């Protein structure tokens, strides 16, 4: 009965859902379109949706104004760097907790999650001073260190939920056949764990790319990733909507595309496997 939905009902739902979907997406679409307008057209009243003279001039202007590519590279280095280092630290831990659980494993996992609940602002002052005194302020290295630490609990949890689904019997079989611990990891576990590791990688790159507390507070001109680069547009300055739109489009495009490919992992990663 529920499967024989009338076409009419399906059409109505399609129209409603598409309308809401487009409304939610509209700010992004509007930003994208505005980035191809001239500054005058960007604030024209009535605004034009599609029928204006398309120009790519804004993109060049954004690049020449503050060297977009350097900020882009900062974002890439910081998000990939922190995620990769995080994975290297987290994989052994998650492996151990998934395959040799003890009575305390659950508590350790919960404790790790709880470190995520400490508000960043509680340690802003010492981190700022530590960074200033060690010369890490406004460096990529500094940002990589902080982002590794704040995302480590999520990385461990995510890997743990993936590893737990790998049947332990396979490992036992390998062990019986005389595989050493190292061989067990390299030849048995790694191939089975790669999808989980890839999902974790993807989600954490997205999180690190968009992180905007530490990146804003611990970076200035030199190491500023795209989050901070965009924030430099927060003080109004004459006509700047088209340039703002171009800069925004460039800042969000890579991660938007990456994110669309990883919807499922997003759910799983951020719910720590609690919703499947």
């Amino acid at each position: 009965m529920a499967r024989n939905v009338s076409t009419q009902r399906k059409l109505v739902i399609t129209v409603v859902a598409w309308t809401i979907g487009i409304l939610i997406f509209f700010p992004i679409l509007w930003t994208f379109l505005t980035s191809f307008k001239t500054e005058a057209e960007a604030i024209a009243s009535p605004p034009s949706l599609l029928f204006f003279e398309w120009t790519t001039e804004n993109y060049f202007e954004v690049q020449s104004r503050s060297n977009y590519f350097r900020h882009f590279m900062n974002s890439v280095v910081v998000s990939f760097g922190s995620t990769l280092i995080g994975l290297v630290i987290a994989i052994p831990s998650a492996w151990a907790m998934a395959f040799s659980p003890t009575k305390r494993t659950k508590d350790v996992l919960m404790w790790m999650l709880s470190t995520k609940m400490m508000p960043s602002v509680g340690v802003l002052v010492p981190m700022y001073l530590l960074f200033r005194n060690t010369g890490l302020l406004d460096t990529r290295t500094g940002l990589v260190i902080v982002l590794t630490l704040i995302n480590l609990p999520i990385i461990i949890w995510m890997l743990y939920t993936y590893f737990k689904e790998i049947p332990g019997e396979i490992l036992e079989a390998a062990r019986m056949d005389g595989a050493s611990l190292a061989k067990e990891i390299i030849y048995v576990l790694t191939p089975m764990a790669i999808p989980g590791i890839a999902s974790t990688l993807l989600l954490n790159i997205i999180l690190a790319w968009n992180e905007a507390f530490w990146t804003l507070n611990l970076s200035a001109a030199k190491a500023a990733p795209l989050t901070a680069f965009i924030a430099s547009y927060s003080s109004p300055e004459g006509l700047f909507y088209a340039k703002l739109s171009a800069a925004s489009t460039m800042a969000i495009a890579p991660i938007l595309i990456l994110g669309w490919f990883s919807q499922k992992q997003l759910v799983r990663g951020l719910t720590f496997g609690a919703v499947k």
Partner: protein
Amino acid sequence: MATLHTRSAARLMIAPSVLLLLAWMIVPLAMTIYFSFLRYNLLMPGMEEFAGFSNYSYFLTDPAFFQAIFNTLAIVLGVLFITVVGGIALALLLDQPMFGQGIVRILVIAPFLIMPTVAALVWKNMFMNPVNGLFAWVAKLFGLQPFDFLANAPLMSVILIVAWQWLPFATLILLTALQSLDEEQKEAAQMDGASAWSRFIYLTLPHLSRAITVVILIQTIFLLSVFAEILVTTNGGPGTQSTNLTFLVYAQALLQFDVGGASAGGIIAVILANIVAFFLMRMIGKTLEA
């Protein structure tokens, strides 16, 4: 299964993460506690002295502090309300058969992937601006006076922007949970004559409870420390009308260089977050075991 050999290996493998996180928790936090008892301003180096609880009493008697607590809670509860209710509605809608479901999902998810500074600046300038914003244009179209969102309703505006960013997350999780609901159960209820409303209340909602718990938990962690959205839109103002606790401490530390005062504020923020976390962890602990 775990032999002595693997057990000690396991300990060794967990050690780096545990030590790092332990250090990350203890070292800066201990420093914050230490600083919070000092009179310490970055503009006056070398003048540090023990100040007892004066930083705390300064912070706790500051009217801005109570405003910040109120705003922090308003942001968390406001955004949670919008995203949970809206998320359930959207998830129910997207769960229906329709044409191009995949594309609609992609459209709905997008805001979650946008970095906070971009989201906030786009809303502030291109939508909420009282002169050139799209909302102003729509208002004029209907012959209304444009509304200056960020000047007249700063907190509400911040809540709207943040809710727009988190609605996709709630929707996505609730939709995932909804799809695991047994189709036959729904049909059975329908055959027994249960109305759509009672099917929702007695079947769908209980099924979603775990997912709703998770949404509340994860979002609260992030919403307690909303920062970038406030920084680039209202800068906490006008006055302190849209200052939350995170922003208040930031302003004290990096705009007024008052290390002692900011540290006391940071410790207060940690204590408050712990109170909230205590209840949340019990909640998720239960749902994860179930």
